[in-house]
């Protein structure tokens, strides 16, 4: 029982983290049809920006709760600045290209952003533990857990709800779904598609950055820390169905729980399970669990 609770909570923690990171990726794919490898770089940038801001605030001896403000400001800043630059300067010239080629281009962007981080923030790791330390811990299932990870779950729920509400209940959301449905027709209808693309990409980048920013306090934020995230979020997004938000949620939960089980029961399978599931889902249901299955193309 104790073990079950622990596995469940560990899984949930990891899943929330994965969801926040992946949801941006899936939104961008859903609308722009871009598989954005550079998403990992947004994640890393978010983490660095947040860690930098938090440590700065700490040196200035501001109250610790300022740290949380830093997290969200940093994420927003990274999303807007990097997102805008990359969409306007590079991607918008590529939409005509083949999906996979664009993905490759974003791989190039990823490499560049990775090193720019080094040039901007240096090689020394950042430790922005204040926000996590501030919240302390509570005993659950016989062991004590950090409250911070519970706030991470809460954040995941908020993000999920926000996306659902934003897409279904707002004017912008409706516009977006129109654009998803058919780009040409919506252009003909006079929708400013390129603006929709820009905004969606910025949101996607922002969510990626938020993922990084929010976990920054739990890690040593050091160079080369976006690489593993990319394939993990790919796995999540593919499992759930590229472009589907509930899909990303389910994908994150599956990966999170499975990994937790593996870590507790057979650690050597920890990485294996994630991608085995990814492959399995692709084989059984290429469009993922949630995206509607398309008709045969031949």
């Amino acid at each position, binding site marked *: 029982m104790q073990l079950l609770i622990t596995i469940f909570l560990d899984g949930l923690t990891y899943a929330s983290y994965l969801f926040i990171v992946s949801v941006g990726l899936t939104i961008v794919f859903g609308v722009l049809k871009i598989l954005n490898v550079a998403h990992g770089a947004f994640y890393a940038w978010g983490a660095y920006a947040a860690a930098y801001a938090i440590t700065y605030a700490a040196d200035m001896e501001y109250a610790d709760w300022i740290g949380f403000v830093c997290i969200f400001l940093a994420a927003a800043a990274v999303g807007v600045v990097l997102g805008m630059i990359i969409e306007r300067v590079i991607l918008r010239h590529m939409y005509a290209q083949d*999906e*996979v080629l664009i993905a490759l281009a974003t791989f190039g962007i990823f490499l560049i952003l990775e090193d720019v981080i080094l040039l901007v923030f240096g090689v020394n790791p950042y430790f922005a533990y204040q926000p996590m330390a501030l919240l302390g811990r509570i005993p659950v299932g016989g062991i004590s857990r950090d409250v911070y990870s519970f706030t991470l779950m809460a954040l995941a729920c908020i993000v999920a709800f926000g996306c659902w509400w934003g897409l279904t209940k707002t004017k912008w959301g409706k516009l977006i779904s129109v654009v998803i449905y058919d780009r040409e027709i919506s252009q003909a209808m006079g929708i400013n598609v390129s603006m929709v693309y820009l905004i969606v990409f910025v949101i996607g980048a922002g969510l990626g950055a938020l993922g990084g920013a929010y976990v920054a306090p739990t890690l040593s934020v050091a160079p080369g820390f976006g690489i593993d995230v990319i394939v993990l979020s790919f796995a999540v997004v593919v499992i759930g169905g590229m472009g589907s938000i509930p899909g990303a949620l389910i994908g994150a939960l599956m990966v999170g729980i499975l990994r937790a089980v593996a870590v507790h029961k057979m650690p050597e399978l920890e990485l294996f399970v994630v991608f085995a599931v990814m492959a399995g889902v692709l084989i059984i249901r290429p469009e993922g669990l949630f995206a509607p299955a398309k008709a045969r193309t031949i």
Partner: protein
Amino acid sequence: MLQILRSDKTVRWTLFGFFVLAVTGNFMPTWVQNNLMFGMARGLAVLGLMVLWRTGLISFGHALYFGIGAYAVALADKHFGISDIFLRLFLAMGTAGFVGLCLGFILRKYRSIFFAMLSLAFSMVLYGVLVKVEALGSTDGFSVSATSILGWVPESKYTLFCAIIVASAVSACMVQYYLKTGLGALTTAIRDNELRVEYLGYSVAQAIHFKYVISAALAGASGAMMAMALGQVDPDSMVNWTVSGELVFITVMAGPGSVIAPFIGGVVFEFLRTYAFELAPHAWQLIVGGTLLAIIFFLPMGLWSLLERIWVRKGSSS
């Protein structure tokens, strides 16, 4: 088959060019030799990816076969002390080809991003196993003992250098021949219009499967050559997704223009990385990534098209 090859100019020039390279190689400083070796070895995998690319498929998971090739060599060396180059190549290509054959039954139904993602997933499964299992060397991998040729252990790397060049030349010619046959012509046909191919009475899935196996075997050979040239294998530089990324990068950089392009691309990449790493240890990825973007934007048909253009201009001016 032979008369096709004899009649084909590209083949002749390929052989000639590789021959010249092999001869001059002897006079090059070892570091140049090494970079050429690595470049050529990678070129083999890229050659396979090029065949796939011509049918409109890009695989983000060929590190799987690259890695299988490399680890086949390393494990055979560690457990059975197999050091003969032919045995090693046979093992590597055999295993890679066989795995390619099996996975092909699944992958041949997939196109575009789904093809890319599923191959990525397969390669990452192997990665996940390698880094976690101590018997497979976990993140350390293994070192690979020197290569022998029919029992004779050459003391200089030059012999291996020649071996790699021979392998490259042979596979380049084979692929050239393949592209000349009806099957080869089908590559473009499939990219153009699968529906028509089916109605002409040929199974698209089968054709793609065949190409996939070829590319897998080539990637296996590539990995094996790399392992032998380096004397070291490890998951992060042989099987991780970044390696697949590199291979696709070289494919696009080289361009689908000719069977020689992959090898030029591979060599250019090696030197690019060596110098980028030397000039800017903190920013070498930046240089590599920048080049990738530049190529995608300004040379969609790759370096080969650039060379072609230069030559055409020369030709017209003179």
